C-alpha cells in the first residue's frame, strides 16, 4: 500500500452500495458525453432492434410509449468515479421490446447505438431479465437532452457509458465487437463491482 503523506480523505461512510473506487456524487449528475448534444425531438426519435432476431422492428415515440411502463429505482455508477444513489428512471423494460422481435438462440452480444452514432457493446445477458430499460423520464420529468433525452438506454448494473444516450437501436450479434469507448481503451464489459474500467482490468 502506497500511503500518501498527510492524506486523510473524506469521513468514511460505510456504504455497501458503493463499488470500489467510486464516490457519492450526491446531488450532482455530471454530463460526460464526448459528442455534441443532438437537437432531437420526440417526433424525430425512433428505436429499432435488428440483427439476429426473428422480426426486426422499429418503434416510433408513440409506439414505444404505448408499451407497458416500467421504472428503475436504484443506483448508477460512472467510470469517472461518481455514483448516484436512489435515482428514479421511467420507461419500458427492454424485455418488452425483445418480446416483439424474438432474439435468435445464436445471439450472444448486442451493439447499442445512438442517434449520434455513438456505440456501446454489451452481452445480451446484460440486457434481458429486467435489468435494462429504454428510459425517457428522470425523477418523474422528461429526460433532459444532455442526459440522453428524449430516450436513453439504461443498464444500471454496468458503468454508465454502456447506457447509450439518444438511443436509436440495438443490433444483436453472435460475437462481441467493441463500441465507441471500448475502442478507446475502456473495458469490454464494465462491471463496477469488479472495477472493470479499462481494457485489461
Amino acid at each position, binding site marked *: 500500500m502506497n500511503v500518501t503523506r498527510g*492524506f486523510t480523505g473524506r469521513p468514511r461512510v460505510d456504504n455497501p452500495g458503493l463499488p470500489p473506487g467510486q464516490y457519492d456524487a450526491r446531488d450532482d449528475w455530471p454530463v460526460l458525453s464526448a459528442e455534441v448534444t443532438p437537437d432531437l425531438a420526440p417526433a424525430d426519435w425512433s428505436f429499432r432492434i435488428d440483427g439476429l432476431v426473428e422480426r426486426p422492428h422499429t418503434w416510433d415515440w408513440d409506439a414505444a410509449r404505448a408499451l407497458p411502463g416500467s421504472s428503475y429505482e436504484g443506483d448508477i455508477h460512472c467510470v469517472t468515479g461518481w455514483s448516484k444513489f436512489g435515482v428514479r428512471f421511467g420507461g419500458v423494460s427492454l424485455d418488452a421490446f425483445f418480446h416483439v422481435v424474438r432474439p435468435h438462440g445464436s445471439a450472444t452480444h448486442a451493439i447499442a447505438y445512438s442517434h449520434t452514432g455513438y456505440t456501446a457493446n454489451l452481452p445480451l445477458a446484460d440486457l434481458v431479465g429486467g435489468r435494462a430499460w429504454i428510459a425517457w423520464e428522470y425523477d418523474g420529468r422528461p429526460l433532459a437532452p444532455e442526459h440522453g433525452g428524449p430516450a436513453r438506454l439504461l443498464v444500471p448494473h454496468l458503468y454508465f457509458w454502456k447506457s447509450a444516450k439518444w438511443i436509436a437501436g440495438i443490433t444483436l450479434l453472435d460475437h462481441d465487437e467493441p463500441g465507441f469507448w471500448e475502442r478507446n*481503451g475502456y473495458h469490454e464489459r464494465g462491471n463496477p463491482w469488479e472495477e472493470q474500467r479499462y481494457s485489461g482490468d
Partner: protein
Amino acid sequence: MTETPAKAFTPPTRFAVPGRIPVADQTAALWQTATLTEIRRETPHAATFRLAVPGWTGHLPGQHLMLRLTAADGYAAQRHYSIASAPDDSGHIELTLDHVPDGEVSGWFHTVARPGDTVEVRGPLSGFFAWAGDRPALLLGAGSGVVPLMSMVRHHRARDLAVPLRMLVSARGPEELIYARELGTETTAVFTRSAPTGVPVGRMAAAHVAPLLAEQPPNGWEAYVCGSNGFAEHASRLLVEAGQPVERIRIERFG
C-alpha cells in the same frame, strides 16, 4: 487520420461522433508511483504540480490519467485529471488543478502537498480527446478546461509544428486566466466578469468563433472543446452554428 477498425459496427445513423485518434496501445493498466518535484501557482485557485514518473511511457496532448491518493487506513480516492505538459518532458508530467471546495483530492494537493511527496498515477488514458499534431486544431476552453488544450499548444511549440492551431479561452478575469504568461498569438482570451481596460466583458460568442472558421485550413479544423458541461454545450453549439461539422467536434466535459 482517424482510425477505422477493419470490422467495426457502423450504426445506420448520421455518424456524428468523431473517431479514435490512433494512440499507442501500450497498456495503461499499471499504477505507477509519481514523486512531486515542484508546485507553481497559476491563479488564486489553480496551481501546477510537476511529477517525476520514471516509468512514464509518454502520452498524446489531450490525454488524461487517473490519480490515486491512499490514507493510512487504506481508504483511497481516485480522480481523472488532464495532463498539462507536452509529451516530450522526459520522465515528468504536469497537472494543473483547481482547488475545488471540499475536494478531498484537490484539497490535499493545494493545502498539504510538498515536493518529495508521492502519489500514484495510471495512464495515459483515452484515444478520443487526443491530438497527435497531425491536423489543424481549433481549441475552445474555459476555466481549467484549458489544461489539456495547453498540452496541445505546448506540443505545437516544442515541435515547431507548421499545422495551424488556434485557441479561444474563457476566464472570469485576467487574474483567473490559467497560463496567462504562456499564451501567445495563437490564443484569444474572453473574459466573462472583469477584463483589462479596453477589452469587452462577456461570454464567448459567435463573433469570437466566426473569424476562426473563416480561415479554413485544407481539410478543415478538428475542434476540441473542454470545460464545464455548461461551457461545453454553449461552445459546441457556437461551433455547429458557425459551420463546424458536428463529427469533427471532440468534447471533454469536466464532471
